Protein backbone atom coordinates (compact mmCIF):
# COMPACT_ATOMS: atom_id res chain seq x y z
CA UNK A 1 0.00 0.00 0.00
CA UNK A 2 1.05 3.58 -0.55
CA UNK A 3 -0.39 6.67 1.09
CA UNK A 4 -1.67 9.37 -1.18
CA UNK A 5 -2.12 12.88 0.04
CA UNK A 6 -5.55 14.40 -0.46
CA UNK A 7 -5.85 16.98 -3.18
CA UNK A 8 -7.97 19.95 -2.29
CA UNK A 9 -10.78 20.95 -4.61
CA UNK A 10 -10.86 18.14 -7.10
CA UNK A 11 -12.94 17.61 -10.17
CA UNK A 12 -16.62 18.41 -9.80
CA UNK A 13 -18.99 15.47 -9.78
CA UNK A 14 -18.52 12.14 -11.42
CA UNK A 15 -20.98 12.52 -14.25
CA UNK A 16 -24.11 10.48 -14.53
CA UNK A 17 -27.74 11.01 -13.67
CA UNK A 18 -28.23 11.52 -9.90
CA UNK A 19 -30.81 8.70 -9.78
CA UNK A 20 -28.29 6.44 -11.47
CA UNK A 21 -25.57 7.46 -9.03
CA UNK A 22 -27.88 6.65 -6.11
CA UNK A 23 -28.76 3.31 -7.68
CA UNK A 24 -25.09 2.41 -8.17
CA UNK A 25 -24.27 3.26 -4.54
CA UNK A 26 -27.26 1.29 -3.22
CA UNK A 27 -26.42 -1.71 -5.39
CA UNK A 28 -22.84 -1.85 -4.16
CA UNK A 29 -23.84 -1.28 -0.52
CA UNK A 30 -26.34 -4.13 -0.76
CA UNK A 31 -23.46 -6.54 -1.37
CA UNK A 32 -22.18 -5.75 2.13
CA UNK A 33 -25.23 -7.34 3.69
CA UNK A 34 -24.47 -10.78 5.10
CA UNK A 35 -27.13 -13.50 4.79
CA UNK A 36 -29.03 -14.19 8.02
CA UNK A 37 -28.29 -10.86 9.69
CA UNK A 38 -30.40 -8.04 11.13
CA UNK A 39 -30.03 -4.75 9.29
CA UNK A 40 -31.39 -1.22 9.70
CA UNK A 41 -31.47 1.00 6.64
CA UNK A 42 -31.34 4.73 7.28
CA UNK A 43 -33.74 7.21 5.73
CA UNK A 44 -33.09 8.39 2.15
CA UNK A 45 -30.76 6.57 -0.24
CA UNK A 46 -30.08 3.73 2.23
CA UNK A 47 -33.75 2.76 1.86
CA UNK A 48 -33.03 1.91 -1.80
CA UNK A 49 -30.54 -0.74 -0.71
CA UNK A 50 -33.39 -3.15 0.14
CA UNK A 51 -34.24 -3.37 -3.57
CA UNK A 52 -30.88 -5.04 -4.24
CA UNK A 53 -30.91 -7.63 -1.44
CA UNK A 54 -32.11 -11.09 -2.53
CA UNK A 55 -35.29 -12.11 -0.71
CA UNK A 56 -34.07 -15.62 0.05
CA UNK A 57 -30.96 -14.94 2.12
CA UNK A 58 -32.75 -14.53 5.45
CA UNK A 59 -31.93 -10.87 6.05
CA UNK A 60 -34.22 -9.30 8.66
CA UNK A 61 -34.85 -5.58 8.29
CA UNK A 62 -35.42 -3.60 11.47
CA UNK A 63 -37.12 -0.20 11.64
CA UNK A 64 -36.82 2.12 14.63
CA UNK A 65 -40.49 3.05 14.48
CA UNK A 66 -41.10 -0.43 15.84
CA UNK A 67 -40.89 -3.32 13.43
CA UNK A 68 -38.66 -6.30 12.86
CA UNK A 69 -39.01 -8.21 9.61
CA UNK A 70 -40.45 -5.74 7.14
CA UNK A 71 -40.54 -6.59 3.47
CA UNK A 72 -40.73 -4.87 0.10
CA UNK A 73 -43.09 -2.01 -0.69
CA UNK A 74 -46.55 -3.37 -1.55
CA UNK A 75 -47.91 -2.95 -5.08
CA UNK A 76 -49.54 0.45 -5.79
CA UNK A 77 -52.99 0.64 -4.23
CA UNK A 78 -52.16 -1.90 -1.54
CA UNK A 79 -50.21 0.43 0.76
CA UNK A 80 -51.19 0.64 4.42
CA UNK A 81 -50.75 4.00 6.15
CA UNK A 82 -50.03 2.13 9.39
CA UNK A 83 -47.34 -0.11 7.95
CA UNK A 84 -44.26 1.87 7.03
CA UNK A 85 -40.54 2.03 7.61
CA UNK A 86 -38.95 4.78 9.71
CA UNK A 87 -38.91 7.03 6.67
CA UNK A 88 -42.69 6.80 6.43
CA UNK A 89 -42.66 4.74 3.22
CA UNK A 90 -45.07 1.80 2.90
CA UNK A 91 -43.60 -1.65 3.47
CA UNK A 92 -45.02 -5.14 3.92
CA UNK A 93 -44.95 -7.78 6.62
CA UNK A 94 -42.83 -10.93 6.27
CA UNK A 95 -43.43 -14.20 8.14
CA UNK A 96 -41.99 -13.98 11.66
CA UNK A 97 -42.30 -10.19 11.77
CA UNK A 98 -43.10 -8.42 15.03
CA UNK A 99 -44.32 -4.99 16.12
CA UNK A 100 -43.15 -3.19 19.26
CA UNK A 101 -42.74 0.34 20.51
CA UNK A 102 -39.75 2.58 19.80
CA UNK A 103 -38.14 2.00 23.23
CA UNK A 104 -37.85 -1.67 22.30
CA UNK A 105 -36.62 -0.77 18.81
CA UNK A 106 -33.83 1.34 20.28
CA UNK A 107 -33.26 -1.25 22.99
CA UNK A 108 -32.24 -3.67 20.22
CA UNK A 109 -29.96 -1.04 18.75
CA UNK A 110 -28.27 0.12 21.98
CA UNK A 111 -27.92 -3.48 23.21
CA UNK A 112 -25.81 -4.29 20.15
CA UNK A 113 -28.30 -6.73 18.62
CA UNK A 114 -28.19 -4.99 15.23
CA UNK A 115 -25.62 -6.54 12.90
CA UNK A 116 -25.42 -3.63 10.50
CA UNK A 117 -26.78 -0.24 9.65
CA UNK A 118 -26.40 1.58 6.37
CA UNK A 119 -26.57 5.35 6.82
CA UNK A 120 -26.34 8.35 4.57
CA UNK A 121 -23.43 10.73 5.24
CA UNK A 122 -22.68 14.42 4.89
CA UNK A 123 -19.06 13.84 5.93
CA UNK A 124 -16.95 10.90 7.07
CA UNK A 125 -13.54 11.46 8.62
CA UNK A 126 -10.36 9.43 8.21
CA UNK A 127 -10.94 7.81 11.62
CA UNK A 128 -14.59 7.01 10.92
CA UNK A 129 -16.35 9.96 12.52
CA UNK A 130 -19.75 10.44 10.91
CA UNK A 131 -21.62 13.71 10.34
CA UNK A 132 -25.04 13.23 8.83
CA UNK A 133 -27.65 15.30 10.58
CA UNK A 134 -26.95 19.01 10.66
CA UNK A 135 -25.58 21.76 8.43
CA UNK A 136 -25.47 24.79 10.72
CA UNK A 137 -27.43 27.72 9.35
CA UNK A 138 -28.79 25.71 6.47
CA UNK A 139 -30.36 22.44 7.41
CA UNK A 140 -31.41 21.58 10.96
CA UNK A 141 -33.65 18.58 10.73
CA UNK A 142 -32.51 16.95 13.99
CA UNK A 143 -30.67 13.72 14.53
CA UNK A 144 -33.67 11.38 14.65
CA UNK A 145 -32.35 7.91 15.40
CA UNK A 146 -29.02 8.37 13.60
CA UNK A 147 -26.89 8.74 16.74
CA UNK A 148 -28.07 5.42 18.17
CA UNK A 149 -27.63 3.62 14.86
CA UNK A 150 -24.19 5.09 14.17
CA UNK A 151 -22.86 4.52 17.67
CA UNK A 152 -24.38 1.13 18.44
CA UNK A 153 -24.81 -1.02 15.34
CA UNK A 154 -22.10 -3.67 15.15
CA UNK A 155 -21.14 -2.56 11.64
CA UNK A 156 -21.80 0.87 10.14
CA UNK A 157 -21.70 1.40 6.39
CA UNK A 158 -21.80 5.06 5.37
CA UNK A 159 -23.02 5.74 1.86
CA UNK A 160 -22.70 9.05 0.08
CA UNK A 161 -21.87 10.65 -3.20
CA UNK A 162 -18.11 10.96 -3.29
CA UNK A 163 -18.29 14.76 -3.34
CA UNK A 164 -20.92 17.40 -2.64
CA UNK A 165 -22.82 19.13 -5.42
CA UNK A 166 -20.13 21.82 -5.26
CA UNK A 167 -17.40 19.23 -5.72
CA UNK A 168 -16.20 19.37 -2.14
CA UNK A 169 -14.90 16.06 -0.77
CA UNK A 170 -17.23 14.39 1.71
CA UNK A 171 -14.51 12.04 2.89
CA UNK A 172 -12.24 14.29 4.93
CA UNK A 173 -9.41 14.28 7.46
CA UNK A 174 -11.60 15.96 10.08
CA UNK A 175 -15.35 16.51 9.92
CA UNK A 176 -16.28 20.18 9.99
CA UNK A 177 -19.99 19.50 10.47
CA UNK A 178 -21.41 18.51 13.87
CA UNK A 179 -20.88 14.79 14.47
CA UNK A 180 -23.49 12.07 14.63
CA UNK A 181 -21.02 9.76 16.35
CA UNK A 182 -17.27 9.45 16.74
CA UNK A 183 -15.21 6.58 15.23
CA UNK A 184 -18.27 4.64 14.19
CA UNK A 185 -17.99 4.06 10.41
CA UNK A 186 -16.47 0.78 9.26
CA UNK A 187 -16.95 1.13 5.52
CA UNK A 188 -17.71 3.95 3.09
CA UNK A 189 -19.46 3.26 -0.20
CA UNK A 190 -19.69 5.95 -2.88
CA UNK A 191 -20.40 5.87 -6.61
CA UNK A 192 -16.61 5.87 -7.14
CA UNK A 193 -15.12 3.77 -4.38
CA UNK A 194 -15.41 1.38 -1.50
CA UNK A 195 -13.22 2.57 1.37
CA UNK A 196 -12.54 0.77 4.62
CA UNK A 197 -11.82 2.64 7.84
CA UNK A 198 -8.90 0.91 9.56
CA UNK A 199 -6.71 1.82 12.53
CA UNK A 200 -4.02 2.69 9.98
CA UNK A 201 -6.31 5.01 8.02
CA UNK A 202 -8.64 4.83 5.03
CA UNK A 203 -8.00 1.89 2.72
CA UNK A 204 -9.24 2.04 -0.88
CA UNK A 205 -10.71 -1.42 -1.32
CA UNK A 206 -12.44 -0.99 -4.67
CA UNK A 207 -12.72 1.55 -7.45
CA UNK A 208 -15.78 1.86 -9.70
CA UNK A 209 -15.42 0.52 -13.19
CA UNK A 210 -14.25 3.24 -15.60
CA UNK A 211 -12.62 5.31 -12.83
CA UNK A 212 -9.00 5.44 -11.69
CA UNK A 213 -7.27 5.41 -8.33
CA UNK A 214 -5.90 8.86 -9.07
CA UNK A 215 -9.35 10.21 -9.83
CA UNK A 216 -10.71 8.82 -6.55
CA UNK A 217 -7.75 10.17 -4.58
CA UNK A 218 -8.21 13.59 -6.12
CA UNK A 219 -11.83 13.69 -4.98
CA UNK A 220 -11.06 12.44 -1.46
CA UNK A 221 -10.21 14.91 1.30
CA UNK A 222 -8.11 12.49 3.37
CA UNK A 223 -5.08 10.26 2.70
CA UNK A 224 -5.93 6.92 1.09
CA UNK A 225 -3.98 3.71 1.52
CA UNK A 226 -4.10 1.89 -1.80
CA UNK A 227 -3.56 -1.86 -2.14
CA UNK A 228 -1.91 -2.86 -5.39
CA UNK A 229 -4.18 -3.27 -7.22
CA UNK A 230 -7.49 -2.33 -5.58
CA UNK A 231 -10.60 -4.26 -6.56
CA UNK A 232 -13.08 -3.06 -9.14
CA UNK A 233 -16.89 -2.87 -8.81
Amino acid sequence: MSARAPRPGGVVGTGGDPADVRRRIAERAAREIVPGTVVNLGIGVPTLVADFVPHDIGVIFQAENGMLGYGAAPPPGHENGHLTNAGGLPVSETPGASYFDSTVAFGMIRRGRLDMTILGALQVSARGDLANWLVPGRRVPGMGGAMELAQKARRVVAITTHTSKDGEPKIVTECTLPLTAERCVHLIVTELAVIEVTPEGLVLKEVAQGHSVNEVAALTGAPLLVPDPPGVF
Partner: protein
Amino acid sequence: MNAHPPLPPRENKVVPLARALEFFHDGMTLMYGGFGGIGTPPTLTKGILEKGVTNLSLIGNDAGFPEVGPGPLFVNHRVRRLLASHIGSNPIAGDQMSRGELEVEFSPQGTLAERIRAGGVGLGGVLVDVGLGTVAETGKTTLELEGRTFLVEPALTAEVAIVYAAKADALGNLVFDKTARNFNPFVAMAGDITIAEADEIVPIGALDPECIVTPGIFVDMVVQSEGIHWTWVWEQRKEQA
Protein backbone atom coordinates in the same frame (compact mmCIF):
# COMPACT_ATOMS: atom_id res chain seq x y z
CA MET B 1 -50.81 18.39 38.53
CA ASN B 2 -53.02 21.37 37.71
CA ALA B 3 -56.73 21.53 38.46
CA HIS B 4 -58.69 20.02 35.60
CA PRO B 5 -62.27 19.09 34.74
CA PRO B 6 -63.59 15.93 36.44
CA LEU B 7 -62.49 12.62 34.93
CA PRO B 8 -64.99 9.96 33.88
CA PRO B 9 -65.44 6.95 36.18
CA ARG B 10 -62.83 4.19 35.81
CA GLU B 11 -65.41 1.64 34.69
CA ASN B 12 -66.41 3.70 31.65
CA LYS B 13 -63.79 6.04 30.30
CA VAL B 14 -65.46 6.58 26.92
CA VAL B 15 -66.31 10.27 26.49
CA PRO B 16 -67.49 12.46 23.60
CA LEU B 17 -64.76 14.44 21.84
CA ALA B 18 -66.11 17.70 23.31
CA ARG B 19 -65.62 16.41 26.84
CA ALA B 20 -62.01 15.41 26.09
CA LEU B 21 -61.33 18.80 24.57
CA GLU B 22 -62.09 20.46 27.92
CA PHE B 23 -58.68 19.24 29.04
CA PHE B 24 -56.71 21.32 26.53
CA HIS B 25 -55.78 24.90 27.30
CA ASP B 26 -53.40 27.61 26.12
CA GLY B 27 -49.82 27.29 27.32
CA MET B 28 -50.14 23.64 28.28
CA THR B 29 -47.57 20.87 28.00
CA LEU B 30 -48.83 18.27 25.56
CA MET B 31 -47.25 14.98 24.54
CA TYR B 32 -48.33 12.98 21.50
CA GLY B 33 -47.72 9.57 20.05
CA GLY B 34 -46.77 9.05 16.43
CA PHE B 35 -43.78 8.88 14.13
CA GLY B 36 -43.87 11.07 11.04
CA GLY B 37 -47.60 11.54 11.66
CA ILE B 38 -48.26 7.80 11.59
CA GLY B 39 -49.91 6.95 14.89
CA THR B 40 -50.66 10.55 15.88
CA PRO B 41 -54.35 10.79 16.91
CA PRO B 42 -56.07 12.64 14.04
CA THR B 43 -59.38 13.53 15.66
CA LEU B 44 -57.90 14.89 18.88
CA THR B 45 -55.30 16.89 16.95
CA LYS B 46 -58.02 18.38 14.74
CA GLY B 47 -60.12 19.11 17.84
CA ILE B 48 -57.26 20.95 19.54
CA LEU B 49 -56.73 22.98 16.38
CA GLU B 50 -60.42 23.84 16.02
CA LYS B 51 -60.75 24.74 19.70
CA GLY B 52 -58.07 27.37 19.09
CA VAL B 53 -55.64 26.16 21.76
CA THR B 54 -52.32 27.92 21.35
CA ASN B 55 -48.93 28.64 22.93
CA LEU B 56 -48.39 24.89 23.24
CA SER B 57 -45.31 23.23 24.64
CA LEU B 58 -45.11 19.95 22.74
CA ILE B 59 -43.19 16.75 23.27
CA GLY B 60 -43.18 14.19 20.48
CA ASN B 61 -40.90 12.35 18.10
CA ASP B 62 -41.19 14.93 15.31
CA ALA B 63 -43.31 17.70 13.81
CA GLY B 64 -45.02 15.43 11.28
CA PHE B 65 -45.49 16.76 7.76
CA PRO B 66 -47.21 20.13 7.18
CA GLU B 67 -50.60 18.50 6.59
CA VAL B 68 -50.03 15.23 8.42
CA GLY B 69 -50.05 14.30 12.13
CA PRO B 70 -49.08 17.16 14.46
CA GLY B 71 -47.96 19.21 11.44
CA PRO B 72 -50.99 21.55 11.25
CA LEU B 73 -50.42 22.70 14.84
CA PHE B 74 -47.12 24.16 13.62
CA VAL B 75 -48.48 25.47 10.33
CA ASN B 76 -51.20 27.31 12.29
CA HIS B 77 -48.71 28.83 14.76
CA ARG B 78 -50.01 27.06 17.85
CA VAL B 79 -46.65 25.85 19.11
CA ARG B 80 -44.24 27.85 21.25
CA ARG B 81 -41.84 25.08 22.16
CA LEU B 82 -41.02 21.59 20.87
CA LEU B 83 -38.91 18.77 22.22
CA ALA B 84 -38.39 16.24 19.42
CA SER B 85 -35.79 14.12 17.67
CA HIS B 86 -36.17 15.79 14.29
CA ILE B 87 -38.31 18.23 12.31
CA GLY B 88 -36.91 17.51 8.88
CA SER B 89 -40.25 16.45 7.43
CA ASN B 90 -41.97 19.71 8.38
CA PRO B 91 -40.06 22.56 6.73
CA ILE B 92 -42.58 25.08 8.08
CA ALA B 93 -41.55 24.15 11.62
CA GLY B 94 -37.93 24.52 10.49
CA ASP B 95 -38.64 28.02 9.14
CA GLN B 96 -40.34 29.01 12.41
CA MET B 97 -37.33 27.74 14.30
CA SER B 98 -34.93 29.72 12.09
CA ARG B 99 -37.01 32.88 12.63
CA GLY B 100 -36.97 32.35 16.40
CA GLU B 101 -40.75 31.87 16.58
CA LEU B 102 -40.44 28.27 17.67
CA GLU B 103 -38.08 27.05 20.36
CA VAL B 104 -36.81 23.56 19.49
CA GLU B 105 -34.78 21.15 21.58
CA PHE B 106 -33.47 18.03 19.84
CA SER B 107 -32.92 14.73 21.59
CA PRO B 108 -31.66 11.51 19.99
CA GLN B 109 -34.74 9.46 19.15
CA GLY B 110 -34.01 6.51 21.42
CA THR B 111 -33.05 8.81 24.28
CA LEU B 112 -36.25 10.80 23.82
CA ALA B 113 -38.26 7.58 23.87
CA GLU B 114 -36.57 6.43 27.08
CA ARG B 115 -37.04 9.85 28.72
CA ILE B 116 -40.76 9.69 28.02
CA ARG B 117 -40.98 6.10 29.22
CA ALA B 118 -39.03 7.05 32.37
CA GLY B 119 -41.63 9.70 33.12
CA GLY B 120 -44.34 7.19 32.38
CA VAL B 121 -43.05 4.64 34.88
CA GLY B 122 -42.15 7.13 37.59
CA LEU B 123 -38.37 7.13 37.26
CA GLY B 124 -36.31 10.31 37.61
CA GLY B 125 -34.36 9.69 34.44
CA VAL B 126 -32.01 7.38 32.62
CA LEU B 127 -28.28 7.18 31.98
CA VAL B 128 -27.35 7.06 28.30
CA ASP B 129 -24.04 7.01 26.45
CA VAL B 130 -25.54 7.82 23.06
CA GLY B 131 -24.39 11.22 21.84
CA LEU B 132 -21.18 11.42 23.88
CA GLY B 133 -18.68 13.42 21.86
CA THR B 134 -21.44 15.23 19.98
CA VAL B 135 -23.61 18.31 20.52
CA ALA B 136 -26.15 16.03 22.24
CA GLU B 137 -23.89 16.48 25.28
CA THR B 138 -24.54 20.22 25.39
CA GLY B 139 -26.06 21.33 28.66
CA LYS B 140 -26.28 17.79 30.00
CA THR B 141 -24.94 16.55 33.30
CA THR B 142 -22.52 13.66 32.93
CA LEU B 143 -21.99 10.91 35.47
CA GLU B 144 -19.24 8.32 35.90
CA LEU B 145 -20.57 4.88 36.73
CA GLU B 146 -18.51 1.72 36.92
CA GLY B 147 -15.76 3.34 34.88
CA ARG B 148 -17.97 4.59 32.06
CA THR B 149 -19.35 8.04 31.30
CA PHE B 150 -23.07 8.62 30.81
CA LEU B 151 -25.36 11.54 30.13
CA VAL B 152 -28.07 12.06 32.74
CA GLU B 153 -31.30 12.30 30.78
CA PRO B 154 -34.23 13.54 32.90
CA ALA B 155 -37.63 11.90 32.73
CA LEU B 156 -40.40 13.65 30.80
CA THR B 157 -44.09 13.91 31.58
CA ALA B 158 -46.84 16.20 30.31
CA GLU B 159 -50.09 17.64 31.58
CA VAL B 160 -51.90 15.70 28.89
CA ALA B 161 -50.76 12.88 26.60
CA ILE B 162 -52.69 11.85 23.50
CA VAL B 163 -52.37 8.51 21.74
CA TYR B 164 -53.92 6.73 18.77
CA ALA B 165 -55.07 3.15 19.27
CA ALA B 166 -56.58 0.60 16.91
CA LYS B 167 -58.96 -0.68 19.58
CA ALA B 168 -59.91 0.39 23.09
CA ASP B 169 -62.38 -0.83 25.67
CA ALA B 170 -64.22 1.22 28.28
CA LEU B 171 -61.55 0.44 30.89
CA GLY B 172 -58.96 2.13 28.68
CA ASN B 173 -57.16 -1.03 27.57
CA LEU B 174 -55.46 -0.38 24.23
CA VAL B 175 -54.02 -2.21 21.25
CA PHE B 176 -52.33 -0.46 18.35
CA ASP B 177 -52.10 -1.02 14.62
CA LYS B 178 -48.79 -2.22 13.16
CA THR B 179 -46.15 0.52 13.00
CA ALA B 180 -48.68 3.09 14.24
CA ARG B 181 -47.73 1.71 17.66
CA ASN B 182 -44.31 3.50 17.65
CA PHE B 183 -44.26 6.11 20.48
CA ASN B 184 -47.84 5.54 21.64
CA PRO B 185 -47.42 2.94 24.41
CA PHE B 186 -44.94 4.95 26.46
CA VAL B 187 -46.54 8.32 25.71
CA ALA B 188 -49.72 6.75 27.11
CA MET B 189 -47.94 6.23 30.44
CA ALA B 190 -46.36 9.69 30.63
CA GLY B 191 -49.43 11.92 30.70
CA ASP B 192 -50.68 13.23 34.03
CA ILE B 193 -53.90 12.76 32.09
CA THR B 194 -53.91 10.43 29.11
CA ILE B 195 -56.52 10.53 26.38
CA ALA B 196 -56.69 7.73 23.84
CA GLU B 197 -58.38 8.00 20.47
CA ALA B 198 -59.40 4.63 19.07
CA ASP B 199 -60.57 3.49 15.66
CA GLU B 200 -62.82 0.95 17.34
CA ILE B 201 -64.28 0.82 20.85
CA VAL B 202 -64.93 -2.79 21.81
CA PRO B 203 -66.80 -4.36 24.76
CA ILE B 204 -64.89 -5.05 27.96
CA GLY B 205 -63.47 -8.56 27.65
CA ALA B 206 -63.20 -8.44 23.85
CA LEU B 207 -59.45 -7.75 23.88
CA ASP B 208 -57.13 -10.72 24.45
CA PRO B 209 -55.56 -10.08 27.89
CA GLU B 210 -52.23 -11.44 26.60
CA CYS B 211 -52.20 -8.98 23.68
CA ILE B 212 -53.22 -5.75 25.43
CA VAL B 213 -50.33 -3.35 24.94
CA THR B 214 -51.45 -0.51 27.22
CA PRO B 215 -53.29 -1.62 30.36
CA GLY B 216 -56.29 0.62 31.04
CA ILE B 217 -54.89 1.96 34.31
CA PHE B 218 -52.72 4.38 32.34
CA VAL B 219 -55.62 5.81 30.33
CA ASP B 220 -58.10 8.37 31.68
CA MET B 221 -60.38 8.89 28.68
CA VAL B 222 -61.21 7.18 25.41
CA VAL B 223 -62.71 8.96 22.41
CA GLN B 224 -64.00 7.47 19.17
CA SER B 225 -61.74 8.32 16.24
CA GLU B 226 -63.18 9.83 13.09
CA GLY B 227 -60.21 8.35 11.21
CA ILE B 228 -57.39 9.84 9.19
CA HIS B 229 -58.42 13.07 7.44
CA TRP B 230 -55.12 13.74 5.73
CA THR B 231 -53.39 12.39 2.62
CA TRP B 232 -50.31 10.30 3.39
CA VAL B 233 -47.10 11.72 1.99
CA TRP B 234 -46.52 8.81 -0.38
CA GLU B 235 -50.07 9.33 -1.71
CA GLN B 236 -49.30 13.03 -2.25
CA ARG B 237 -46.16 12.09 -4.18
CA LYS B 238 -48.19 9.74 -6.33
CA GLU B 239 -50.76 12.46 -7.02
CA GLN B 240 -47.98 14.83 -8.03
CA ALA B 241 -46.35 12.21 -10.24
